[in-house]
């Protein structure tokens, strides 16, 4: 039987809750009490949710939550492709920050996204890269004096 992604998500929560409870076994009672008190209902509710996911619940009772819903008016294949693409960009930005630091990654990322992904015109791209760098440097570095560490590569090269 192939599990639905929804059921897999509940299964992941079950796994995390079980691991969290097992971890408390070695702890003194002061430390373990609260995670146990929370962990037990968390595990039970996750099991109930998993069983309900396997059974499948009609949309009118299961699909309505007090939260926003992802757009459904885009073709599913395109939506999946775009979702993967944006997650790759987000991951890439993170990796660039770790390796090169914020000061280099910000203009680099904005430029790469605007030219590579959005296919914007050169002039607009360069203006927006300048604006992004200005926001970072003038506001976060000069005005707020926030300490931004150098990237891993620069530290290794030193």
């Amino acid at each position, binding site marked *: 039987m192939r599990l639905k*992604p929804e059921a897999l998500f509940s299964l992941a*929560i079950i796994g995390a809750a079980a691991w*969290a409870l097992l*971890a408390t076994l070695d*702890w*003194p009672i*002061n*430390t373990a009490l*609260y*995670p146990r*008190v*929370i962990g037990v*209902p*968390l595990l039970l*509710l996750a099991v*109930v*949710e998993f069983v309900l996911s396997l059974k499948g619940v009609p949309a009118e*009772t*299961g*699909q*309505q*939550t*007090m*939260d*926003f*819903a*992802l*757009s459904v*008016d*885009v073709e599913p294949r395109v*939506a999946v492709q775009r*979702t993967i693409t944006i*997650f790759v960009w*987000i*991951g890439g*930005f*993170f990796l660039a*920050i*770790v390796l090169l630091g*914020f000061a280099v990654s*910000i203009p680099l*990322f*904005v430029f790469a*996204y*605007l030219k590579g*992904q*959005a296919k*914007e015109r050169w002039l*607009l791209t360069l203006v*927006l890269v300048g604006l*992004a760098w200005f*926001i*970072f440097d003038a*506001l*976060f570095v000069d005005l*707020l004096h*926030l*300490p*931004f*560490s150098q990237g891993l590569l620069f530290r290794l090269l030193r």
Partner: protein
Amino acid sequence: MLEALLQGLVAVLQWNALSFMLIGVVVGFWVGLLPGLGGATTLALLLPFVYNMAPVQAFAFLLGMHSVTATTGDITSILFGIPGEGTTAASILDGHAMAKKGEAGRALGASLMSSLIGALVGALALALAIPVVRPLVLTFGSPELFMVAILGIASIASLSGRGPRGMVRGFLAGCLGLFFSAVGSDPQAANLRYTFGTLYLWEGLGLVPVLVGFFAIPEIVDLAVRGTSIAGKASVGRISGVLEGVKDVFRHFWLTIRCSLVGTWIGVLPGLGGAVAQWMAYAHAVQSAKDATDRERFGKGDVRGVIGPGAANNSKEGGDLIPTVAFGVPGSSSMAILLGGFFLVGLVPGPDMLTKHLSVTFSMVWTIILANIITVAASFAFLNRLAGLTAIRASLLIPFLLLLVFLGAYTNNNNIGDLVVMLSFGMLGYFMVRYRWPRAPLVLGLVLGDIAERYLWISTARYGTSWLGRPAVLILIFLTVLAAASPFIQERRSRRKEALRAA
């Protein structure tokens, strides 16, 4: 007392105090707009500037800045789905949904007007409550504060989904939030829990990277998938929308007042703070829905979901100040920092603030009122331009949103760990939205978890199990059961009404 009230006003209107207040308001305006930069952090950064100021000038400067951050924080939450402040995350649920429907102007109008009313209610509460609040606060010990935390989670968890399965998911998300709050050193013996051997997690999960990732990443992914502007094909509401939002606040005037009072009361209670007040107010707004169908509108762009948190996160400022000024007991981290300001200008919080320095106390009331009026007026002047930002196409907006998300998360501890937490919660938030799990209970669980654990432990150590029999605790247990059962009661009532109508 009236004389002191007028003296307080005159003191704030002196050119030097007014100038400092305006500088504070400008700083607070931008701090609120920028995600991640918190009012408390900025308060700490501004503290050294007050050394040579007179008390009225110092509080005009500090409170002028701090009291407006929640107002402008709502603007970022509504327009971009990124919480401008930790205390404005609840505005995203309905505010950003309205922006996506092209009703950004209306949402902003409602948010600003409810913020102003909330601030006025909070300031009024501060002015009126000082003589009467002492006995009330003193009746709330650790058992009652623990039950307030549980009541908050039960309210939002039970209301966030429809039907039994919705409730399972709501409570599951609430438990998940409570569980995440266990990360870090435990408050009793400082033993480490779930830190994976990293120093970064010793102090637990930072609220800013969690909130920024949890709310902003799913919105950015959705924006990229749609490939349009935030408002999509809908035309962006201009001035008429703004006025409609203002009218909405007066249409739901009693809701605004009730949510303001919720915010004020949460502010008065030590340790709960603005992050809790907004969700409590949101839960109250949802609870006030007529029936299940009416409740379904929340989360999809219902203006009441903007009004409630907007009013509460501003009214809590006045409430926060009550225990700080009257007893020297800060209700939140911001107030603890402000307490430092008292000592820097040579004042000692406590009875003296209600007698010898009463005019200084009233100058704080006037600062909150004037700073919010100025901010709301300035925001209204720029609303059309701000609402117009939702018409910018996604490809241009996404790199800047990601820039703010990464920088905002990083400001928490200036550590790469902040980014890891932000991305992890971004992924979790995305899957929760994808599989229709409500996110609000998780956030409230995370915010309240530390408080709940601390008060549970104190209650058990101090009273054993006898605290469960305290009258105020019993009332709060009854309210918790009522809150958990309210969706069923409401559904039953509406079914009965329908049956009567059909007959």
